[in-house]
């Protein structure tokens, strides 16, 4: 199973399938009989507007698989970068990008995934954080309903580094965000948040694997989402505390609201602990909006639609509240608000 090879060699037998334990809820081989033709390059200047426009002067574009392959943030620098991953047409493409954040540098990465058509796309990001470096990665995925897309991130942290992430997605035909973090402990901190708002037949998969490899690390994860109509959400979170990673503090929570009888949420939170003196907790809830609460709100005069959006907005808003960059948080909040308002 190798998605990059599947795309490059146009070999569907290499696609991940339900036989791969990690992919059993996001089966690509069963979905795609053939790999679409390679995407055509996208003409310069046709990217249009991006969701984080105006928040930074520096925008990198990866369009139909072409774009920069390496970015370096020098030690001590503070930068805000917009990274737009744009897919147009119904072809297949794959791209890989390495981002190095030097010691004590700070990077705010405003990443958007746009378009998608009926094609197949893969974006892989290798993120290296030097000692005491910090990176906040904020991802907004607004893809076409027919898109099939996988976005992977491999984060390697040095001691004292801080990596924070908030993913916000409306899903696609089939879509997966996989985040893998090598956590050295030693004062390093990780926040891995996610939000999904799914309707129609959209699918989103938030998968994360955090490996605590040294003592004294922290990981805090909060994923929330709503699934309406016939949508399907997948949450797979695994935190492994390796031998010797004593004193690790790891918390994981996933809370989902199911707004329709035909929507589905599959959740698998896993903690594997091989160290001592570890504080670990995970909590997972999947439920519906509470009818009693809805009646209470309607008795006070709120129409049902408004009552539902207010409940959903407050439920999801708590994840947005954890974002550190206020301007980007506002963009994500208004995007979310528009999605919820449109939900009915």
């Amino acid at each position, binding site marked *: 199973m190798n998605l990059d090879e599947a795309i490059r060699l146009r070999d569907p037998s290499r696609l991940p399938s339900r036989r791969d334990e990690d992919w059993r809820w996001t089966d690509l081989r069963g979905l795609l009989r053939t790999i679409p033709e390679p995407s055509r390059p996208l003409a310069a200047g046709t990217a249009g507007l991006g969701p984080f426009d105006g928040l930074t002067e520096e925008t990198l574009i990866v369009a139909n698989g072409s774009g920069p392959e390496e970015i370096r943030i020098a030690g001590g620098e503070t930068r805000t970068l917009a990274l737009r991953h744009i897919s147009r047409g119904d072809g297949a493409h794959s791209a890989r990008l390495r981002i190095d954040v030097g010691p004590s540098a700070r990077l705010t990465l405003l990443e958007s995934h746009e378009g998608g058509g009926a094609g197949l796309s893969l974006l892989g990001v290798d993120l290296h954080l030097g000692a005491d470096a910090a990176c906040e990665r904020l991802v907004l995925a607004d893809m076409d309903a027919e898109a099939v897309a996988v976005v992977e991130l491999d984060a390697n942290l040095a001691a004292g580094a801080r990596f924070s992430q908030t993913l916000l997605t409306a899903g696609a035909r089939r879509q997966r965000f996989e985040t893998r973090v090598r956590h050295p402990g030693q004062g390093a901190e990780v926040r891995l948040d996610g939000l999904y708002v799914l309707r129609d037949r959209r699918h989103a998969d938030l998968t994360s694997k955090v490996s605590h490899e040294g003592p004294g690390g922290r990981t805090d994860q909060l994923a929330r989402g709503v699934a309406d109509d016939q949508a399907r959400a997948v949450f797979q979170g695994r935190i492994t505390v390796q031998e010797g990673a004593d004193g690790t503090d790891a918390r994981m929570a996933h809370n989902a609201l199911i707004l329709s009888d035909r929507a589905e949420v599959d959740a698998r939170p896993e903690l594997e602990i091989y160290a001592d003196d570890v504080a670990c907790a995970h909590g997972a809830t999947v439920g519906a909006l509470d009818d009693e*609460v809805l009646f209470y709100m309607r008795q006070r005069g709120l129409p049902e639609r408004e009552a539902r959006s207010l409940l959903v907005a407050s439920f999801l808003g708590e994840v947005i509240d954890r974002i550190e960059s206020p301007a980007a948080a506002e963009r994500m909040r208004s995007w979310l608000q528009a999605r919820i308002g449109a939900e009915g």
Partner: protein
Amino acid sequence: MLSLHDLHARVGDREILKGLTLEVPAGEVHAIMGPNGAGKSTLSYVLTGRLGYEITAGSAELDGVDLLSLEANERAAKGLFLSFQYPLEIPGVPALTFIRTALNAQRKARGEAEMSAPDFLKRARACAADLKMDFDMLKRPLNVGFSGGEKKRMEILQMALLSPRFMILDETDSGLDIDALRIVSDGVNALRGPDRSMLVITHYQRLLDYIRPDRVHVLADGRIAASGGPELALELERDGYDKYARAA
């Protein structure tokens, strides 16, 4: 004001209201007393439009408007308010935001202009002071982590800010100590007026020492079994509901 005629309601196969007839004229406060299981809470839910109750016969009108054909929020916009026996918690929504959103939804439904945030805040501060509530409490998510008594005060605060015309108080005294009961009752009494009416549902006579009713009705086995003046409440306190339970 409120006019109920031969109201029958059921939940599943169980008939709970069995021909309830009641008139509450404008400006009056009526108390509904009765044993547990008589249908007191069902009456409040049927009037306010909670789902799960099937109305099989009869009518319920507020100022000539058929309540039963309206959605719960439309009834609220017509001026109907229920102070819940067990108020619900709304995580993540500050009380002030919730009440202002509800008020403006009602005003919109009535074709009135929205109330501005400064005007609303001024009124909210005054109401909180009247009810001896810490204003900071209104900035917290509605009822989350509040004590039973605090939730009841929050109900009366919402009632004052929404200024409904017909109020149903469902067991408002439960969970209140004597001091809180006095404050809450003062808040309720302040809302009495010639254009407003109330239905006070209670199991005990105690609340009626503070909120003096014009009429008292005994609800037993889904019907009004007896009606009288305030002295009926004292009689019930002394003799209990046995004779009505038997008659039913």
